[in-house]
């Protein structure tokens, strides 16, 4: 259904909400998902708008990644969000993909992001309706990784999402939404969350705070991140560091952020702390172009954001 109003959206009984559709389309083609009630929501006015109001940035879930990446307000005050939106996928994808769809994207794994023919030689995994994780066979849950770039940036600014679920509208922390979505998303699509994201909000950063986003991928466009980081420091609120593409949801690096607060700490000490913390929090799996061992070598790439400590970068 091509919805034009919120009422139309909420009328669907077993909805799968589609923004741009670029993430779900390959999964449908490969029969990884078999959604029954597609609801196209990107034309609904309630899901649009980028504005600063009453101390928050409000970002409609239906806004395209390209529009977010070039928006002057976002670039000036929430640069990590603009940078992450601009670093996602290719120009063609950014022109149609929405921020809501990006946050609610499927996790990815080399065992199910394949054709049905390729998968036919293997047992069904949790994601395709089976009872095993082919990455970690003794894992009780799917271990696929969540690769959103924008999620890492939204979590940096402690953003919230306005969601509609079972007819109830409420604001929830983006971190909480992603944790719930990620858990359900590791199951067959009939088990996915029937949550509609309407918009996001992030508080206005304090004076003097500096922040940014960094992504490392095999090819700068096209590929999903092998790792991404977002970092803030320098303002009146605590420093914060978030890493993505390392686990089923982005991880907050609290020890590393605490060390960032210490202006006497050398960059090398911060990187060692980051590496140690990620070794505890990351859940690496076999990926298309990198082994878990090589991936651990990327934990030091937070270094690309450390110039922000001195107001550079």
């Amino acid at each position, binding site marked *: 259904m091509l919805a034009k109003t919120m009422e139309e959206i909420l009328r669907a009984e077993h909805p799968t909400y589609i923004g741009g*559709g670029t993430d779900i389309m390959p999964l449908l083609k490969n029969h990884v998902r078999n959604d029954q009630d597609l609801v196209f929501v990107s034309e609904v006015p309630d899901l649009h708008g980028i504005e600063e109001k009453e101390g928050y940035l409000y970002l409609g879930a239906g806004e395209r990644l390209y529009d977010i990446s070039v928006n002057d307000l976002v670039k000036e005050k929430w640069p990590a969000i603009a940078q992450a939106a601009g670093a996602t996928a290719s120009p*063609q994808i950014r*022109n149609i993909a929405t921020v809501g769809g990006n946050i609610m994207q499927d996790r990815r794994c080399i065992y199910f992001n394949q054709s049905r023919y390729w998968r036919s030689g293997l047992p069904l995994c949790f994601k395709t309706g089976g009872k095993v994780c082919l990455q970690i066979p003794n894992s009780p849950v799917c271990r696929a990784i969540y690769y959103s770039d924008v999620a890492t940036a939204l979590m940096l600014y402690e953003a919230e999402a306005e969601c509609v679920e079972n007819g109830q509208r409420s604001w929830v922390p983006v971190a909480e939404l992603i944790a719930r979505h990620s858990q359900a998303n590791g199951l067959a699509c009939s088990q996915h969350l029937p949550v509609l994201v309407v918009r996001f909000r992030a508080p206005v950063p304090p004076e003097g705070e500096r922040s940014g986003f960094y992504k490392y991928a095999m090819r700068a466009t096209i590929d999903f991140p092998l790792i991404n980081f977002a970092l803030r420091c320098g303002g009146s609120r605590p420093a914060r560091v978030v890493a993505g593409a390392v686990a089923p949801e982005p991880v907050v690096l609290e020890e590393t952020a605490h060390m960032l607060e210490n202006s006497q700490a050398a960059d090398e000490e911060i990187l060692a702390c980051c590496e140690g913390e990620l070794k505890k929090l990351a859940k690496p799996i076999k990926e298309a172009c990198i082994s878990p061992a090589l991936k651990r070598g990327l934990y030091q790439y937070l270094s690309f954001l450390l110039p922000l400590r001195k107001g550079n970068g």
Partner: protein
Amino acid sequence: MTDKQYQITLKLNGQTRSFEVEEGETLLHVLRERAGLTGAKKGCDLGECGACTVILDGRAVNSCCVFAVSADGKQVETIEGIGSEEHPHPLQQAFMDAGAIQCGFCTPGMIMAAKALLDRNPHPTREEVRQAMSGNLCRCTGYEKIEQAIAMAAEVVASYAEGKEGDRA
């Protein structure tokens, strides 16, 4: 997915066209199989190679990853709509002049991505060209000549815009 059918209307290369489509059908499928416009190519079919690029409401998109239903009411430009054999678009001419084509499979997508760029930015820098073309893969020509062709076409397009060459047919 269900087999629900929808009626959509596109402004396709300037003409209003209506199609009966299935819920999960791609815009690429509509263009190639229902409209008979086979310029946009089915390459990876996953949104990675750019061979299926068309312009949707002024923006380059991967038509293999656009639900046809969601294109209802929108303007679609394909390679067939921008020039003809007698009067090629400056980008088409420049690709031929620069030798930016070998097998030609990626070329329609390349040209449509480049056209979307020049439509909004007639004087792109080399970096802007590379950024705009970063969603298009070529496996035989390489990218140098494609960049050259776009730079050549940009000069022609800019001269049209400034009225030096008169209106193009």
